[in-house]
């Protein structure tokens, strides 16, 4: 389906719930509100005949930006659908029940960013082993910062003493 037609039909169907931006000949971005997220994915995949490619998360200060990519192969362009899952408990409805191929990528976004996909048929971590710490989400920025802080805090003498087992600086052994 042609790009202009797709943009028109999305705007007609979802009105003020979406913002459509075309950045180049081959890239269309649709910013969607949370409550129409599943309907929009369903509309693109089942009514407009887009292919489902994959998804991606991106951690931000106030939430997690979640995006899914729908290529229109014959017309050589991508529609990227974006939404924002707010912290402290980011959650979205799962699109796996309308697009089976989204099952694993939602599991991945869950385990990397702690986005809870509601009504997902099997929301287990997909990439990392069962022995991972339950509350560690590698792509969450506060996780990285906390890790960095702990490392910095223990640098220098305190870290040296911890490793070597020596008495803290200033005390005479």
């Amino acid at each position, binding site marked *: 389906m042609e790009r202009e037609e797709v943009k028109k039909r999305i705007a007609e169907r979802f009105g003020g719930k979406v913002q459509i931006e075309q950045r180049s000949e081959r890239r269309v971005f649709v910013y969607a509100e949370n409550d129409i997220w599943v309907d929009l994915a369903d509309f693109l995949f089942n009514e407009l005949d887009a292919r489902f490619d*994959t998804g991606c998360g991106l951690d931000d200060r106030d939430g997690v930006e979640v995006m899914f990519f729908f290529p229109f*192969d014959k017309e050589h362009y991508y529609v990227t659908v974006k939404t924002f899952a707010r912290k402290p408990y980011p959650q979205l409805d799962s699109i796996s029940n309308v697009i089976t191929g*989204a099952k694993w990528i939602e599991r991945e976004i869950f385990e990397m960013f702690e986005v809870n996909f509601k009504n997902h048929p099997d929301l287990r971590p*997909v990439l990392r*082993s069962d022995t991972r710490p339950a509350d560690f989400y590698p792509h969450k920025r506060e996780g990285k910062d906390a890790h960095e802080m702990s490392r910095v805090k223990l640098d220098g003498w305190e870290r040296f003493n911890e490793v070597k087992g020596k008495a803290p600086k200033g005390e005479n052994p």
Partner: protein
Amino acid sequence: MVKKIPIGPFHPILEEPEFFELHVDGEKVVDIDITIGWSHRGIELLSESKTWDQVPFLVERVCGICSASHPYAYVLAVEDLLQVEVSKRAQYIRAIVAELERLHSHLLWTGLAGHFIGYNTVFMWCWKYREPVLDILEAVTGNRNHYATYRVGGVRRDVPQEEIPNIRKMLDELWKKNDMLTNAILDDPVIHARTKGVGVLGWDKCREYGALGPTARAGGYDVDARRDHQTDAYAELDWDVVLCQNGDVFDKAVVRQLENFEAIKIIRQCVDKLEAMGPGTEEDLVLEIGEIPPGEGLGVYEAPRGEVFHYVRSNGGNMPMRHKIRAPSFNNILTNEYSVLNYAVADAGLITAAVDPCYSCTERVGRVDTRTGERWVMSEGDLIKLSQEKTEMIRRSLRGK
């Protein structure tokens, strides 16, 4: 009575661990649970600590077999962000390296599939025919794998003009060998009996699961990122997307064999164009790229196993703020939860291998009777033997007719 057969996660001849738990009723597979993640290396996160120019070296290590496709998709993503188009010379060199990769990857799969069903001659042939391809890759890029050819704005080195006759000679010889191999596979009644109608994944299921590459095209799902997203020089070259209809293991093999011919056609055309251009200068190879501005870009390239997807986000710094990588096996392995159902255990290994996953089964296969709790262990060799015995049984019955 349902039993569980775990396959995986480790296997010495394949490069990535995966775990398939088959639930079987007698010989028939009735359910499957797939687990991946034993070799999660955090490459996306690592990438966020590398400069834009270092990342291609990192992502070509995502997979040893797809070590051209990942950096290709990555540089396309950054070029999408920058909205630049690289020189024609760079486009041809990119296509040559990527298609050589496709040749050696498809030959590798055909060889392994041959081994799996007890055709060790096919295994030996394929690996022998693959060697000259790797030699040419070494002559052109300096390495048999990990080619370090792709960079944002072009390529790192030219194809030496003196190598062009060698490339042509290798392609001519490989065409004949691939022709012989294809005819041998297409005409063999045992291979027909062993692979036709096995592991069927039709058009509708391909679309539902987002199958990619030969796995999708075998089932008539017409996707190929090189054509669909007009990757570089591919839009102007003469080549076809190979498409079959049945979606079984046989068609998956046919798609790969016929794609070898298309890859040879593409390389020949690119080599002709490079020869006509003569030796190039540094400016012909790569654009001068300055700062990467804030923005986002996505790049897709059709790897041997299917479409590789890279997404990058820049905040204006010298490293990606976010880099998402999706390899085709991520989509294709999931299709096994449908395609393996209702087939025999002896076929399950072949079906799961038919998507050409970065897949590893195990050194040992434990078989558990869930009712009695009885356990017994089969080696990796036993599992392959089970598959090979089925081929031998079919061969004998065909001889008897």
